[in-house]
């Protein structure tokens, strides 16, 4: 694929705008709080779109399109079951504790609720996870540009990373959040036309359904048994593994997304952030998954488009780029490509700014140098930005070991986020939970994840201890790793908490359900969290019924 001058021009204009926003925000950054937390000053419409865009990395866009071609509309479960319910839960139930506690990060909340060792464990595992996520996103972008555009892997990755570094270095979290809004709109307007064109060329939904196996166009109908769907998962693994543990573990405890809501300018705005974000999140499958399904339908129809082959089977990871190459003319090709770069940047900037805050506040400020001046922490935050980007580039090369980048991400989440959700669930809603319980629960959860991965095999992965069980897909394996990790953490936290000393109620005020006054919302009814969540819930139900 070769690009025309106009395509490069659009990419250059985009770079100029993101750097310009970084430069514009720089004037506001005079303290570590402004650099690392936006000083809780961002309007709700911006935090909502940033909440969504920070998760909309290149691996999401490319990986979901690939999964659409591989698994069909069942992939939408990553949104409808695997995201939206958890977003409602964090907005309605958990945000009062996060925002009300005045913690600057999720690990800091753990310190207030439990103790220093629980905070440190979470801070260190989260820091490693964000670097991995960022590296995987970078790998996805670099390898695709190399394959399709013939660009050098290293130079395309370094150029994009350098732009992210400059604007996050200049304006910190606010710059990242503001750019995420521009990136979100660019992703939608850059990929939606492709979805429309691809589906129209494939004969609409009916045309696609007539060319594909029925399992590709139903989200629930073939999920009774793992052997009847291409994902290789059964309904319990999907609902418990993805819909409960992984989803709630990510959206309710991952500082990358929670940080966006915590930057909102009021408690009400913080609670509404994930609820408002749930509306566009529900619709994202139509932009990122439908083109993948259409790609497979077009391939089977023999209309001039064909998915590329790799080792005798379809190379699903190239679905998005090859569709763009086929159906976008010069001009829109530049917009589509820029949207892909934007998705990479939003994901990477999200990881870098979350890494910044956790390292500066929870690792450096918590252990290396306590009680330093604010100017010192601002300097550390800026230096951490540079280090975080450099480490992300390094981890990009580790991602080459996996052929489905989405599976690797889910595996990492299973190790870290899945047990963490059990800790938060008990910590926020059961005042008897202790610091020792939380710490040993987390250790047990991560150990259970490692043990499950070591004792089970799927698509040749895992089984490094023994092969006691075989899963039909790595996705099914990841769901069960998450279920075991969550269960181990939950049970161990429960057991240890029963035999260790709990904190006094006075220390838990503002941190635990029953000891925290949830503010009364002085806004019109449809802006209140519960009605908003109910509206989203009904819309979600309708979507699941339509695509049953």
């Amino acid at each position: 694929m070769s690009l025309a001058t106009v395509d490069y021009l659009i990419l250059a204009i985009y770079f100029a705008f993101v750097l310009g926003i970084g430069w514009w925000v720089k004037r506001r950054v005079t303290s570590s709080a402004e650099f690392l937390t936006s000083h809780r000053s961002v309007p709700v419409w911006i935090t909502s779109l940033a909440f969504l865009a920070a998760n909309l990395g290149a691996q999401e866009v490319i990986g979901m399109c690939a999964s659409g071609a591989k698994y069909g509309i069942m992939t939408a479960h990553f949104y409808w079951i695997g995201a939206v319910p958890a977003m409602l839960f964090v907005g309605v139930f958990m945000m009062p504790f996060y925002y009300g506690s005045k913690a600057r990060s999720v690990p800091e909340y753990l310190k207030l609720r439990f103790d220093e060792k629980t905070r440190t464990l979470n801070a260190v595992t989260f820091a490693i996870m964000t670097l991995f996520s960022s590296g995987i996103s970078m790998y996805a972008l670099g390898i695709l540009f190399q394959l399709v555009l013939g660009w050098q892997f290293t130079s395309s990755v370094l150029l994009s990373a350098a732009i992210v570094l400059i604007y996050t270095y200049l304006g910190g979290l606010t710059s990242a959040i503001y750019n995420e809004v521009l990136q979100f709109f660019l992703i939608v307007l850059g990929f939606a036309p492709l979805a429309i064109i691809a589906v129209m060329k494939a004969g609409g939904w009916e045309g696609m359904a007539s060319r594909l196996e029925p399992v590709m166009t139903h989200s629930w109908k073939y999920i009774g048994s793992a052997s009847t769907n291409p994902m290789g998962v059964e309904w319990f693994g999907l609902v418990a593994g993805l819909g409960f543990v992984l989803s709630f573990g990510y959206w309710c405890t991952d500082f990358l997304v929670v940080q966006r809501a915590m930057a909102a300018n009021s408690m009400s705005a913080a609670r509404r952030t994930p609820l408002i974000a749930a509306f566009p999140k529900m619709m994202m499958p139509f932009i990122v998954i439908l083109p993948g399904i259409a790609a497979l339908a077009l391939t089977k129809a023999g209309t001039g488009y064909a998915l590329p082959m790799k080792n005798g089977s379809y190379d699903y990871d190239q679905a998005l780029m090859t569709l763009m190459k086929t159906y976008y003319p010069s001009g829109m090709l530049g917009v589509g490509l820029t949207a892909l770069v934007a998705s990479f940047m939003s994901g990477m900037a999200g990881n870098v700014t979350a890494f910044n805050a956790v390292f500066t506040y929870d690792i450096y400020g918590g252990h290396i140098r306590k009680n330093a001046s604010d100017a010192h922490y601002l300097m550390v935050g800026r230096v951490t930005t540079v280090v975080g980007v450099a480490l992300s580039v390094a981890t990009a090369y580790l991602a080459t070991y996996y052929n489905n980048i989405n599976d690797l991400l889910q595996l990492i989440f299973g190790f870290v986020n899945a047990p963490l959700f059990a800790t938060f669930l008990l910590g926020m809603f059961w005042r008897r939970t202790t610091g020792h319980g939380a710490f040993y629960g987390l250790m047990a959860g991560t150990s259970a994840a490692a043990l499950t991965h070591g004792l089970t095999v799927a698509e040749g992965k895992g089984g490094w201890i023994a092969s006691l069980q075989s899963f039909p897909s790595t996705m099914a394996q990841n769901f069960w790793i998450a279920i075991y990790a969550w269960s181990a953490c939950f049970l161990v936290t429960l057991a240890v908490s029963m035999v260790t000393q709990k904190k006094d109620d006075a220390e838990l005020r503002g941190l635990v359900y029953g000891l925290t006054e949830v503010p009364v919302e002085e806004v019109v009814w449809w802006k209140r969290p519960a009605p908003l969540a109910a509206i989203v819930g009904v819309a979600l139900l309708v979507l699941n019924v339509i695509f049953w």
Partner: protein
Amino acid sequence: MDLRIPIGLFFTLVSVILFATAVLGDASGSTVNAYCATAMLAFGGVMLWLAKRRA
């Protein structure tokens, strides 16, 4: 400055480039570029109008 201003300006600028490409470029891609340019111009315009109304 209102964030809607740079967003509105960006999409308006891109729409102008796409319109120019639709008119001056290869005829086979002009329809796609023209339709997308119209959508982006409308979106950019709305963003700028919202920012102006607030100011």
